[in-house]
């Protein structure tokens, strides 16, 4: 019975995601009625279709909406994986420094005019995760306090490095600044073509490792006693989660708390088993970022707000609430 309910909730979320994506194609500086959006998508050759509408949908909005969706997926699934790996439901890519590491890597690439921004983001992110893991891990499980302290200290260090880079590389200041605030403004097909395959592969790898993730929630030794080859599984999980995070950060800057909100909601709705939690997190993450981007574009239109600021406004109070509630893992 439980499984039917989970499946129904997943389909419902998928429906909401489709609706919000269609809405996001219609919203913006120029409003396009949904019927026009539909026509532009599925009958682009229809002579009755306004050419401007078609251009806006295809050249401006579709890539951006899809990018918002995959970024949400990437942050949410990597959040799910980090939470199991650190045995701590506060382990959002933003909190543990994974996003900050990616940001530093990408900033270095931008200021040094090095073209492989995603690769640089990946390297930065991987180093940050490894550092937090080593610093925070005292004994079998990473306590919330250690994790947050290590993440905060490392994030401070990383953002100081980013500031210094921006200070010295002043010509690229605006580009870097806009990017760091987390936004999708001006993002288009090339960004999507880089980010989407990386994020989808990362998400599929993590989903396929749902049972190792379940086992790891009992701690590394307990998982090993179940026959898990810790070295390989942990390497594969960290790599996949970090690829997904880095690709998301390289495409749209630091968008915090999605990796915290989505997995938490998913666990509440479909249970803690990663076989269900990961797909549900992915859909909810996509939904969150698509909706946040809709708000970012419409609240003060034609001004565009940074998406990262909106997700933080929603996510940070939630984070504090989780922390205050104090559950077994917070010790």
């Amino acid at each position, binding site marked *: 019975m*439980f499984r039917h309910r989970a499946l129904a909730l997943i389909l419902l979320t998928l429906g909401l995601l489709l609706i919000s994506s269609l809405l996001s194609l219609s919203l913006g500086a120029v409003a396009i009625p949904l019927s026009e959006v539909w026509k532009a998508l599925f009958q682009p050759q229809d002579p009755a279709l306004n050419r401007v509408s078609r251009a806006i949908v295809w050249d401006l909005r579709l890539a951006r909406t899809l990018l918002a969706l995959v970024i949400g997926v990437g942050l949410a699934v990597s959040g799910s994986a980090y939470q*199991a790996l650190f*045995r701590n439901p506060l382990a959002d890519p933003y909190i543990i420094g994974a996003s900050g590491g990616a940001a530093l890597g990408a900033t270095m690439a931008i200021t040094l005019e090095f073209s492989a921004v995603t690769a640089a983001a990946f390297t930065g992110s991987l180093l940050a995760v490894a550092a937090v893991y080593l610093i925070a891990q005292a004994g*079998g*499980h990473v306590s919330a306090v250690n994790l947050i302290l290590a993440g905060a200290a490392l994030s401070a260090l990383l953002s100081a490095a980013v500031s210094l880079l921006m200070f010295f590389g002043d010509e690229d200041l605006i580009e870097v600044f806009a990017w760091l605030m987390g936004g999708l403004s001006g993002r288009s097909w090339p960004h999507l073509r880089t980010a989407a395959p990386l994020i989808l592969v990362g998400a599929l790898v993590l989903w*396929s*490792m749902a*049972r*190792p993730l*379940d*086992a790891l*929630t*009992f*701690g590394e*030794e*307990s998982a*090993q*006693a*179940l*026959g*898990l*080859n*810790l070295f390989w*599984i942990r390497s594969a999980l960290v790599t996949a989660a970090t690829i997904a995070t880095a690709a998301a950060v390289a495409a749209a800057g630091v968008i915090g708390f999605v990796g915290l909100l989505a997995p938490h909601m998913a*666990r509440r709705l479909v*249970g*803690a*088993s990663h076989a269900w939690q990961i797909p549900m997190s992915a859909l909810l993450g996509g939904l969150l970022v698509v909706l946040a981007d809709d708000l970012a574009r419409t609240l003060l239109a034609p001004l565009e707000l940074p998406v990262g600021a909106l997700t933080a406004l929603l996510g940070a109070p939630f984070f504090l609430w989780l922390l205050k509630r104090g*559950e*077994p*893992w917070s010790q």
Partner: protein
Amino acid sequence: MVPINAQNVTLAYNGRAVLENVSLEVREGQILALVGVNGAGKTTLLRALARLLTPRSGTVLIHGRDAARLSAREAARQIGLTPQQSGAMWPLTVEEVVALGRAAHRGWLLPLTARDRAVIERVLEQTDLLALRERAITTLSGGEKQRALIARALVQEPAILLLDEPTANLDLRYQDMILALAQRLAMEQGLAVVVSIHDLNLAARYAQRVALLAEKQVLAIGSPDEVFTEETLTRAYGAPIVVTRHPLYDAPLITPAARG
């Protein structure tokens, strides 16, 4: 082949030896209790038997094969470990938790087969968990949680069951229930059971053999009557201890004597 045979095992953390030259054997159908003061090395020894800690010297033989040479999967098909229940922090359902034990046979990626399902079903029944299968493990009582973790080890279909402080934090009724389950598994299925435990009276009642760890070694090993003497216990625990007979069971009854 003896299920577990540890030969001259020295175990160390960060270069500091916890146990030196320990040798012991566990036979089929037998419960061996590891007892001793806090820090005597009960859990350390259990970790070494579970292949989670590599001895600095000496070997642990599992059915005659060096445990250090077994892969994680091979080891998990022979040794089931029930960790301390404090590790269950994620709200997975009992059935999901128990099913994890099948990875030892099925691997981590392939779906469970009908045979896996049958094993899970049998073990859930045996551990009296059928009614709790859909409950999140985090919502269970201590005794139920412990049972779920034992069930997880049992679906590995091991020949050896290692229980790490299974009675810690349980009330009297559950302590008895868990050890009675271990006894039944040893007698009916011929499992070799090793249990680390603080309560000497429970050890005396349920274990056929007891290993008393103290002073970085096995101070005494044998039947409860052989090991639990006033002299040995007083030495191991550094406090006067009185041994009488249990009024109900044919076992020693251990009581700390007041000083002075």
